[in-house]
C-alpha cells in the first residue's frame, strides 16, 4: 500500500532541506508565533506575510499543488470558524477607514489567513525534513522527551487516518466511475463515517499491540536510550556545529517576518 507520507517530500534536495533540523524548528516556530500573534483587526499585516511564505515554498521545491491540497483539507473547518466569528464575534460597529469593513469581517479574515499560514508553515517543516530528524532536533534543543513522544504518536495516528482516507476513497472511486456530483453527497457522508469507524478500530488495535509489549500507560524513557554512549544521536554529538547557511537563515527569515509584523 502506498502511504501518504506526511514527510513524503522530505527526501528532495533544496536549500531548505539542507538546513539543520534545529534551525528549521526554531525558525518555523518563530514565524508561526509571529503570525498567530498578529491582532485580529490587522489582516493586512498577515497578508503581507504571505509573499514571505511563498518565497520559502519556492525555495523548498515542494510542489505547490501538494501544499494547496493540504490547505483544502482544512478549508471546511476554517470556513466554519470564520463563519462563527462573523455571526457571533464582538462588534464595535467600528468601520475601518476606507474599507468599510467591520471588526467581525476583519477578525474572520484574520482567522482564515492564520489557519492557512499554520498549514503552510507546518507542511513546509514536515516536507523539508524527515520526521525522525525533527524529533531528534526537538530533543537536541532540550525540549521535554514527552513532547517528542507525543508528536510521534500524533504522527502515527495521522498515518492511520490518511491510510483510511485512501482506502475508502479507492473503494468509492471503484464503485462510482466518473466525476462526483452533488447528488452523491451521501457517498461522501458514508465515507466519512467509514473512515471514523475504521480509524477508531485501528487505533484500538495499535493500542492492543502496545499493551502486548508491556505498555501500561507510561511511555518508556527512550531518552535514556538516546543518551547512552552507544546511541547518542548524531545531532547531540554535533551540538553547536551549525553551518553559516544555517545561521544566515536563522537570522534573516525571522527578522523579515518580524519587520512585517511590527511595521506592516
Amino acid at each position, binding site marked *: *500500500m502506498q502511504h501518504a507520507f506526511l514527510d513524503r517530500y522530505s527526501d528532495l534536495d533544496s536549500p531548505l532541506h539542507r538546513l539543520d533540523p534545529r534551525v528549521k524548528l526554531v525558525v518555523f516556530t518563530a514565524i508561526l508565533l509571529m503570525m498567530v500573534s498578529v491582532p485580529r483587526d490587522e489582516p493586512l499585516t498577515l497578508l503581507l506575510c504571505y509573499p514571505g511564505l511563498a518565497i520559502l515554498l519556492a525555495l523548498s521545491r515542494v510542489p505547490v499543488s501538494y501544499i494547496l491540497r493540504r490547505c483544502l483539507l482544512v478549508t471546511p473547518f476554517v470556513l466554519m470558524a470564520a463563519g462563527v466569528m462573523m455571526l457571533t464575534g464582538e462588534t464595535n460597529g467600528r468601520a475601518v477607514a476606507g474599507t468599510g469593513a467591520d471588526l467581525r469581517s476583519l477578525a474572520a479574515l484574520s482567522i482564515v489567513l492564520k489557519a492557512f499560514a499554520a498549514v503552510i508553515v507546518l507542511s513546509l517543516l514536515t516536507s523539508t525534513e524527515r520526521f525522525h530528524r525533527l524529533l531528534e532536533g526537538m530533543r537536541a534543543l532540550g525540549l521535554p522527551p514527552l513532547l517528542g513522544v507525543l508528536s510521534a*504518536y500524533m504522527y502515527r495516528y495521522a498515518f*492511520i487516518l490518511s491510510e483510511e482516507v485512501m482506502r475508502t476513497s479507492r473503494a468509492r472511486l471503484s464503485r462510482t466511475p466518473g466525476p462526483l456530483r452533488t447528488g452523491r453527497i451521501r457517498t461522501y457522508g458514508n465515507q466519512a463515517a467509514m473512515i471514523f469507524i475504521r480509524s477508531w478500530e485501528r487505533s484500538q488495535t*495499535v493500542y492492543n499491540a502496545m499493551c*502486548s*509489549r508491556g505498555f501500561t500507560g507510561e511511555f518508556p524513557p527512550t531518552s535514556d536510550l538516546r543518551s547512552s554512549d552507544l546511541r547518542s544521536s548524531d545531532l547531540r554529538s554535533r551540538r553547536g556545529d551549525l553551518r553559516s547557511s544555517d545561521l544566515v537563515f536563522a537570522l534573516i527569515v525571522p527578522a523579515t517576518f518580524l519587520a512585517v509584523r511590527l511595521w506592516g
Partner: protein
Amino acid sequence: MNTPAVSIRDLSFAYTGQEQVLDHVDLEIQPGERFGIIGPSGAGKSTLLLHLNGILRGRTGKVEIGGIPVGEESLPEIRRRVGLVFQNPDDQLFNPTVEEDVAFGPLNMGLSSEETVGRVEKALGAMNLEGFEKLSSHHLSLGERKRVALATVLAMRPDIVAFDEPFSNLNPAMVEQVIGIVSGLKATVIIVSQSIIPVLAVCDRIAVLNEGRIAAVGPVDVIASTG
C-alpha cells in the same frame, strides 16, 4: 508431567452486547510445539489470540501460560512470556525509528538501556535487519515491516510467539520467507490463519475453530486427511 505452554479450559467470550464469539474452548499446547489454529473469517481466531496475553479476558473459563493463570496481577509476566505478532505490521510499529520500536518492549519490561541496546541488536540481527536501526519503519517494504514487527516481539525473549494471519496479503515468495523465519524460531509457536497450506507446512498440530468452537484437534497429517 510437563506443564503445558498454554492451557485453555472452558473459555467463553462475547464482546459487549454481542453474541458468543468463543464458545467453551478447550486447548492445550505443549512447550516447543508449533501449533496452528485454522478456521474461516469471523470464527473467533483473533479473539482467541488476544486471550493468550490477557488483552481480552473471558467471563468464564481459565487461561494458563506455563502454569501461571492469566489475571490482573500476572499481566506483566504473561506479556513478557507471550509475544503477539499482529496481522498488520503497521499496527505494531508506531515509533519514529526501527530501534525505538524494537526497544519499546524491553524498556517497558524495565530493562536497563545497555541491556535493551543489546537485545535490539540481537533481535534485528535475527531478522536480517542490521543497519535498519535509524530508519523509520513506514519507509520500509511490507516484508521488511513484517520482520521489524517480529523483531519488536523477539526482543522481549518470549517463551511463546503467537502470529495472527502471518501469511495474509503475501506473494508466494514472501510466504516462503515467513515459513522459513517461523520454522527457525526456538520458542513455542502458535499460528492463526485462514490459509491452510502454509500452516500445514509449518505446524506439528492443528486445531480447527468454527463459530467459536474447536471442531477438531490433531496432528497435521490426521487433520489434513480428514479435510
